[in-house]
């Protein structure tokens, strides 16, 4: 508590100094508000509402579109889990681009939250000999199988541990989120993630205005800015409303499954109980909630 206080007063002092500097330089107060904004996790409902309202105005100015920004908290009694059927995935990458669209990922410079790796059947799961660059006429190619990789929503996430400013944390429903306004872009989390699931906005993200998804969550797919890290959130804006993630719905072979690990009647529990399941890099004790299975 004391720490927090001294941090606060420190920030206050600094901000006073900055404010005078800003006032002198004639910068607008909105940037100043942004600068003073606290970590989203520590805000009261009222403060969140104000921030979200202002963000809506900002988006409207920037993109000329009305955004619906949600900050819906986790649903009680849910812990999300995901399962991907390795015996079905054909490597078509429909999921990659459905995700890009749903989650407003930058087209240029390109950011993909899902990476589909092609692996040789003879070698089994072997990251060193895999490629994401495969590009034949038709998939699946003979002798290969496909392993789509995205954030594994670890129960024991190293990315959260290393963040020096606590800009990323695990929510009660198991989704690890990022407060883009609090992220300082140090990229420690990218170095810590063993799955390459985190991506950095090296440039100003570019999404064609007509392709913007305006149904967004504050901790998820809202438009990001240059200099922050982002990653898959199990489509937090959809799943907290009861919908399936976009990648689940698009997959033409039905390889992707999603549900509540705490519900014994869910699809995901059925898979864990009845199918042969594996997790990636088990030896690292990250404890992913993203399971791979063999449906056949």
């Amino acid at each position: 508590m004391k720490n927090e206080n001294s941090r606060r007063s420190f920030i206050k002092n600094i901000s006073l100094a900055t404010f005078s500097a800003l006032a002198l330089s004639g910068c607008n107060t909105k940037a100043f508000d942004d600068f003073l904004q606290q970590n989203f996790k520590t805000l009261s409902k009222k403060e969140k509402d104000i921030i979200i309202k202002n963000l809506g105005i900002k988006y409207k100015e920037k993109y000329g579109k009305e955004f619906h920004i949600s900050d819906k908290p986790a649903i009680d009694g849910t812990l999300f889990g995901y399962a991907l059927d390795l015996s079905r995935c054909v490597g078509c990458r429909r999921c990659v681009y459905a995700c890009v669209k749903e989650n407003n990922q930058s087209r240029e410079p390109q950011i993909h939250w899902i990476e589909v790796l092609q692996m040789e059947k003879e070698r089994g799961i072997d990251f060193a000999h895999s490629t994401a660059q495969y590009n034949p006429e038709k998939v699946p190619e003979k002798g290969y199988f496909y392993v789509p990789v995205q954030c594994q929503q670890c129960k024991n996430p190293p990315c959260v541990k290393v963040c020096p400013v606590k800009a990323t944390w695990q929510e009660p429903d198991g989704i690890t989120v990022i407060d883009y306004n609090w992220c300082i872009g140090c990229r420690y989390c990218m170095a810590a993630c063993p799955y390459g699931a985190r991506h950095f906005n090296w440039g100003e993200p570019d999404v064609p205005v007509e392709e913007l998804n305006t149904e967004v969550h504050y901790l998820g797919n809202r438009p990001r800015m240059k200099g922050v890290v982002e990653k898959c959130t199990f489509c937090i804006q959809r799943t907290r409303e009861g919908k399936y993630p976009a990648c689940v719905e698009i997959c033409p072979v039905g390889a992707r499954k999603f549900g509540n690990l705490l519900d014994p009647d869910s699809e995901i529990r059925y898979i864990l109980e009845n199918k042969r399941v594996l997790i990636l890099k088990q030896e690292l004790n990250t404890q992913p909630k993203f399971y791979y299975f063999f449906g056949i």
Partner: protein
Amino acid sequence: MKDNFYENIKVSVILTSLYLVLLSGCKNKESDTIELNKVNTENEVSIGTAQTNDYAVEAPPFSDGIFPCTDCHKNLIPNPVRRVLVDWHDDISAMFNHDSENRWCLDCHDLKNRDSLRLASGKLLDFKESYKLCGQCHGEKYRDWKVGVHGQRTGEWNGKKEYLLCVNCHNPHSPKFRELTPEAPPIMQEDIK
């Protein structure tokens, strides 16, 4: 006294018949609503599973103008002899690849009721329930499908799930999945500017 007695009987007869009419009226109404429901759900079939959930199923993907089959078949004399079709449905003959050595049309389609499918038991089946026909042989897949694990999943993870029929993804006459053209690969790291 006597008159009064007859009067009473008359009244009770009238009352009873009124009551009967009312009853039957209600009954008519009831069956009307059932009929309505049927019409409403023409493109959606509800199936009960172990969890007694009702799932919506997409309509069967008929090619344009092919259904009802009786439109043409009512003028034809049924021929139960197994053969390769050449004059009509030759496209299906050409692609047929579904244990084709042992099976042909009438293993799934009914000889007399062309608008129905037919289980091995001889029981007739609506096209909207074709998953039961597939489930005869593919029991394991049928089981997984019912719990939502086999097949494309849409709808709500904690609410109403939307189901596709087997034939919405697998061509029943050639069920093996066709190859797909992949979307573009990601930009190589060294090409990012």
